[in-house]
C-alpha cells in the first residue's frame, strides 16, 4: 500500500482500541520474568557454550603478538577466535570500526578475541590469560584540539544558507554569540549487548538484542561473506537500546565466529565495563550559536555551527538540524564540521542531532530572551513559523509549538516565575524555573506485516518490528484489533524475527507510527480477502465484535475465513508527502530546580512536558516513553558524561558506578500532557513519534531553571556543581 495522499477517515478513527491507555500486552511476561531476553533463550538449543570477549588495551596502534597458549590450556576452554584465525571478514555497512580488531587497533576495548568455554566463568578466566603485546600509535582524543582541523562532511548534511546571515547579524540591534559544549554520552541501557549464535550447516541463527532486524541480517551477512538468506536474526525482547543496538555489534559477530569455530551454539554478552568503549556512543559537540534580533524580538539572523569528532570514515552529530526548522528568521546559516578522533565510534543515541542541538539552542534562546527583556515563552511565540523557514513554500503538516508552550505555562504556574535570576529562596535552596521548546523531526519508514486470521477467530500479526521497551507489541495489537473489529485478547503479536516481513524497526522515533501503518496496510488487505471470500463489497463491510457484517448479514470472522484461515501480507510505503510538508513533533518542557546555595548541588523539583505529536496511539505507553526521555534529559543536564583520558584515549568512567544516570531520588515529580492532534500527512494512523521528542529540550530547560535560580549561566554540560560553585553567593 502506498501512502501518497493525506489520510481521510478510516477504521482507526473509531478509536475503540487505538488511542486507549491499555496495559502492555507483554507486561505480564516481563513482570514475571518469563519474557526470554537474548541471553536467556534456551528453546531448541543444546550444548551451548559461553563466549567471553577480550577488548583491546590500547586506543590506537597494532597488535605485535598474541600469546594464546595459557588461555587455550585453561580449564574448559573449547576454542579462541582472533582476527588471525577468524578467516576473511568484511565490515558491515553501518559499522565505522571493525567489530573484531587486529592487527590494527582502532579504539580502546575494540574486540580482539573471543574465548569459548564450557562455562561463563571459565571463558572469563581464560580471557585474562591471553597475553597481547601492542605497539601504540599516537591518536587524537580531544575535540577542542581536533576542532581546528575539522572539515565539512561530504556525505551528510551540507551547509545551509538563506538570505545574508553575516550582514543581518552585524546589523542586528540585539545579538548573541555564544559557544556551548555537550559531552559524549553512553546509552547505558539495562540489558547489555548479548547474542546466542547457532550454526546449522551454512545457516546461522542469532538470538540477539537488536533494534533493526534487517540491518543486522544484512551486516552480519556482509561481514561473514555469506548470503543474507542464510542468516536468521531473532530479537523478540530488548532491555533498552536508545540507539546503542541499531547495528550489528561485537556480541553478535563474536558469538557467530565462536559458534562456527566451536561447532556448538555460543552465547556472548558484553561485560558492563566493556560496553562503554566497545560499542557506540553519542558524540560530544562544540556548538557556536549566533542570534540577531530586532527590539521587538523578531529574529533577523540565526546561525548555528557544530563541531564533533569520529573515527575516520564516521559521521558528524547532526546538532544543527532543529535550527533549520524551529524558529523564523530571514537570514540563516548552519554548518557541521567533523574532526577525526580515535575515540570509540560515535553514532546515534536517542534523538541524534536534536538532543544535543536543543541542549545548546534552547539555552541560547533563553539568553537572547533575557537580552531582549522578553519572557522566554513570548520570545519563542514571536518567532514561531508555520512554514519551513529555509523553504517557505513548504508548510509544516502540523505545528502546535505555541499551544504547547502556552498550555504548559498555564499548567506549570509559569506566571509565578520571576525573570530576575537568583531572587527566590527556600531555606538553603535557590529556586528557579526554566522552559525550553521540544522539537524532533518525524520520520516515516516503509514497514511490512503479515496477518493471519484463523478459524477460531484469532488474529496473529507477524512483523520484524522490535519492542525496545516502547510498547510496540501493544500498539500493534491495538491497531490490528481496531482494523479487524476483534477484542485485544484475540490478537497475538509476534515481533523481532527476520523470517517475518521487514518493518521500520525501532529508531528515530519512527517505529510506532511506521510499524502500525504497516499493520494497517496488511489489515486492509485482510479485510478485502475476508469480504471477497463472503462475496461482500469490502468497502461496505463492517468489521465489529468479531464479526463481519453487510446489511443484515453478519458472519463471525472465525467462520468467514474458512477452515484454513486467511493469511495476507502487505507493507506501507510512502510517497512524497514528507517532502511537500515538513513533519515534526513539538512540545514544551518546564522544569523547576533547587540549587543548594551551600554546595551548588542541583536537584530537580518538578517537570512538565506538553507534547503535540499527532495521534497518541496509547497514552499510557506514550507517557512512559516521555517520562523516560525526560529522565534521560535530566541526566544529560546534570551528570551524564563519558570522561575522556586525553593521554590514553578512552572513556575512563566505563561502568554504571562511574557513568552516573539519574536514580529515583533525582526525579521527584513528572507530568506529561498530550495535545489532541491528528496528522493526516504522517500515515493512515495520523500518528507521529514521541519517544525522542521527550528528551529534546529537557536539558536546556533544566539549565535555564538553574540560571533562573542562581544567576550563573553554565554553557558546558553536564552542569555539575563545580561549574558554578565559585559564582554562587558567599555564605553569610
Amino acid at each position, binding site marked *: 500500500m502506498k501512502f501518497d495522499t493525506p489520510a481521510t477517515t478510516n477504521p482507526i478513527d473509531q478509536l475503540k482500541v487505538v488511542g486507549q491507555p491499555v496495559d502492555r500486552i507483554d507486561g505480564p511476561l516481563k513482570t514475571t520474568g518469563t519474557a526470554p531476553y537474548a541471553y536467556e533463550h534456551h528453546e531448541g538449543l543444546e550444548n551451548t557454550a559461553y563466549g567471553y570477549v577480550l577488548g583491546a*588495551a*590500547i586506543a590506537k596502534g597494532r597488535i605485535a603478538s598474541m600469546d594464546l597458549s595459557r588461555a587455550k590450556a585453561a*580449564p574448559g576452554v573449547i576454542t579462541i577466535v582472533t582476527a588471525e584465525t577468524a578467516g576473511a571478514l568484511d565490515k558491515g555497512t553501518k559499522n565505522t570500526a571493525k567489530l573484531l580488531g587486529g592487527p590494527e587497533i582502532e579504539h580502546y576495548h575494540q574486540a580482539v578475541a573471543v574465548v569459548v568455554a564450557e562455562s561463563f*566463568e571459565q571463558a*572469563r*578466566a581464560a580471557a*585474562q590469560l591471553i597475553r597481547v603485546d601492542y605497539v601504540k600509535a599516537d591518536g587524537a582524543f580531544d575535540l577542542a584540539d581536533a576542532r581546528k582541523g575539522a572539515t565539512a562532511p561530504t556525505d551528510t548534511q551540507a551547509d545551509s544558507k538563506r538570505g545574508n546571515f553575516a550582514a543581518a547579524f552585524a546589523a542586528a540591534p540585539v545579538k548573541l554569540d555564544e559557544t556551548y559544549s555537550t559531552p559524549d554520552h553512553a546509552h547505558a541501557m539495562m540489558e547489555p549487548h548479548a547474542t546466542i549464535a547457532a550454526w546449522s550447516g551454512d545457516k546461522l541463527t542469532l538470538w540477539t538484542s537488536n533494534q533493526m532486524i534487517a540491518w543486522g541480517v544484512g551486516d552480519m551477512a556482509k561481514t561473514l561473506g555469506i548470503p543474507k538468506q542464510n542468516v536468521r536474526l531473532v530479537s523478540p525482547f530488548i532491555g533498552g537500546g536508545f540507539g546503542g543496538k541499531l547495528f550489528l555489534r561485537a556480541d553478535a559477530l563474536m558469538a557467530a565466529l565462536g559458534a562456527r569455530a566451536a561447532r556448538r551454539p555460543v552465547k556472548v554478552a558484553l561485560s558492563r*565495563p566493556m560496553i562503554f568503549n566497545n560499542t557506540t556512543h553519542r558524540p560530544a559537540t562544540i556548538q557556536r550559536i549566533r542570534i540577531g534580533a530586532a527590539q521587538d524580538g523578531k529574529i533577523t539572523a540565526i546561525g548555528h555551527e557544530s563541531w564533533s569528532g569520529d573515527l575516520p570514515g564516521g559521521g558528524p552529530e547532526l546538532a544543527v538540524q532543529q535550527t533549520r526548522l524551529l524558529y523564523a528568521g530571514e537570514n540563516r546559516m548552519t554548518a557541521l564540521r567533523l574532526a577525526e578522533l580515535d575515540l570509540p565510534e560515535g553514532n546515534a543515541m536517542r534523538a541524534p542531532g536534536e538532543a544535543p542541538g536543543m541542549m545548546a539552542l534552547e539555552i541560547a534562546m533563553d539568553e537572547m530572551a533575557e537580552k531582549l527583556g522578553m519572557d522566554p515563552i513570548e520570545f519563542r511565540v514571536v518567532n514561531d513559523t508555520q512554514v519551513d523557514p529555509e523553504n517557505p513554500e513548504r508548510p509544516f503538516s502540523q505545528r502546535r509549538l505555541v499551544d504547547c508552550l502556552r498550555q504548559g505555562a498555564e499548567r506549570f504556574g509559569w506566571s509565578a516565575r520571576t525573570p530576575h535570576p537568583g531572587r527566590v529562596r527556600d531555606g*538553603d535552596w535557590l529556586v528557579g524555573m526554566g522552559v525550553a521548546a521540544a522539537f524532533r523531526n518525524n520520520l516515516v519508514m516503509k514497514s511490512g506485516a503479515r496477518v493471519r486470521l484463523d478459524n477460531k477467530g484469532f488474529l496473529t500479526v507477524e512483523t520484524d518490528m522490535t519492542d525496545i521497551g516502547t510498547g510496540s507489541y501493544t500498539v500493534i495489537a491495538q491497531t490490528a484489533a481496531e482494523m479487524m473489529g476483534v477484542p485485544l485478547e484475540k490478537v497475538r503479536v509476534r515481533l523481532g524475527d527476520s523470517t517475518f516481513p521487514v518493518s521500520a524497526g525501532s529508531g528515530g522515533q519512527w517505529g510506532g507510527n511506521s510499524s502500525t501503518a504497516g499493520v494497517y496496510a496488511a489489515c486492509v488487505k485482510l479485510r478485502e480477502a475476508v469480504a471477497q471470500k463472503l462475496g461482500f463489497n469490502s468497502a461496505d463491510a463492517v468489521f465489529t465484535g468479531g464479526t463481519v457484517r453487510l446489511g443484515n448479514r453478519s458472519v463471525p470472522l472465525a467462520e468467514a475465513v474458512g477452515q484454513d484461515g486467511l493469511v495476507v501480507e502487505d507493507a506501507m510505503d510512502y510517497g512524497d508527502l514528507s517532502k511537500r510538508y515538513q513533519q515534526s513533533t513539538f512540545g514544551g518542557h518546564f522544569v523547576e530546580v533547587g540549587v543548594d546555595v*551551600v*554546595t*551548588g*548541588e542541583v*536537584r530537580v523539583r518538578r517537570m512538565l512536558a506538553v507534547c503535540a505529536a499527532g495521534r497518541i496511539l496509547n497514552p499510557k505507553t506514550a507517557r512512559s516513553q516521555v517520562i523516560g526521555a525526560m529522565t534521560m534529559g535530566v541526566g544529560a543536564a*546534570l*551528570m551524564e558524561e563519558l*570522561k*575522556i*583520558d586525553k*593521554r*590514553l584515549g578512552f572513556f*575512563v*568512567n*566505563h*561502568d554504571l*558506578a*562511574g557513568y*552516573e544516570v*539519574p*536514580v*529515583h*531520588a*533525582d526525579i521527584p515529580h513528572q507530568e506529561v500532557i498530550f495535545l489532541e492532534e491528528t496528522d493526516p500527512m504522517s500515515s493512515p494512523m495520523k500518528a507521529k513519534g514521541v519517544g525522542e521528542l521527550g528528551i529534546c529540550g529537557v536539558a536546556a530547560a533544566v539549565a535555564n531553571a538553574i540560571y533562573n535560580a542562581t544567576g550563573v549561566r553554565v554553557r558546558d554540560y553536564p552542569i*555539575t*556543581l*563545580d561549574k558554578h*560553585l*565559585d559564582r554562587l553567593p558567599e*555564605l553569610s
Partner: protein
Amino acid sequence: MKSFTYERAASPAEAAAAASRVPDAKFIAGGTNLLDLMKLEIETPGHLIDVNGLALDKIEPTNDGGLRIGALVRNTDLAADARVRRDYGVLSRALLAGASGQLRNKATTAGNLLQRTRCPYFYDTNMPCNKRKPGSGCAAIGGFSRQHAVLGASEACIAVHPSDMAVAMRVLDATVETVKADGTTRSIAIADFHRLPGDTPQEETVLEGGELITAVTLPKPVGGTHIYRKVRDRASYAFALVSVAVVAQRDGTGRVALGGVAHKPWRLEAADAQMPRGAKAVHERLLADAKPTSDNAFKLPLVRRTLASALAEAKG
C-alpha cells in the same frame, strides 16, 4: 575470576589462623565489594574464608557505656539500631548516605572499613595502578582525577577511601578490635587503622596478614549535635565528592572529619581545637596541606562551604 578454594570458619581465631596458613587467602563477609573485584581480577584470592557464620553480628553495650558493634553487623541494622540513632546520630546518617538499600542489607561493618577505592584506573586492569600492581605507576595522576584526593596523597597514589561509615567512625573515635593468627587480640584506634598511600598504596590498613576484625567499638556517647553532610552529583547511590561529619557541643567545642578527600577519613585534632574560633579557623587547619589536581580543586571551596554550613546548623 580466578578459581579459588573455600571454607567456612568455625571461630574468629580459626579464621585468622586459616588465613595466615594460605598466603593468598581473603575473608569474605557481605562480598559487596570483593566479589566485584574478583570478577574483574583486581582481587585474585586463591582461597576464601567465609566468616558469615561467626557470631559477630551483635550490637552490645560495653562496660564503659559505649557500644560494641560486631564485625558482621549489616549496615542496615547498624543504621537502624535505636542506640546508634539516639547516641551516635552521625554514624546512622553516614550509613544511610551510603550505597543503596540492597547493598546496605548485605554489607558488614568490618567490610565497609575494608572496601577498596573506586578510582576508575584501579578498576581497569589495562591501566597502571600502584595499588593494584605495585610499581606499575599511577594513571590517575595527570588523568581524570575529579573524585581523587586533595589531602595526604603521594606520588604513587591519589585515590580516596570511599566509605561514609568510616568518616563517622573516625569522628566518634571508634576502636577496631581484631584477632590475629596466633589467637591474640588487639585494639586499633580508628585514627591509626587506615594508612595514607605513601610508597605502598597497596597497604591500606595496619592489619597484619590473617588478622581478622571482630568488632568496632564506640566509646561512651559524647552528646552534642551530630551532622553528616554528603555532597554528590546525584541524590542517591553515588560516592561523595566530599562529606563532612560533625559532632558539635553547646560550648563551641567539637570534632570534624572529612570524607572524599583522602586515602582515609580526614580528621586533625588540631583542627578540632579551632572549633571555638569558628568554621574558617577549622577549615584553614584541615585543608592547610591540600594539594588538589586541576580536576578536583573545587573540593576545597566545597569543603569550606559545606563545613561552614554544617557548623552553623549545629549552632542552631
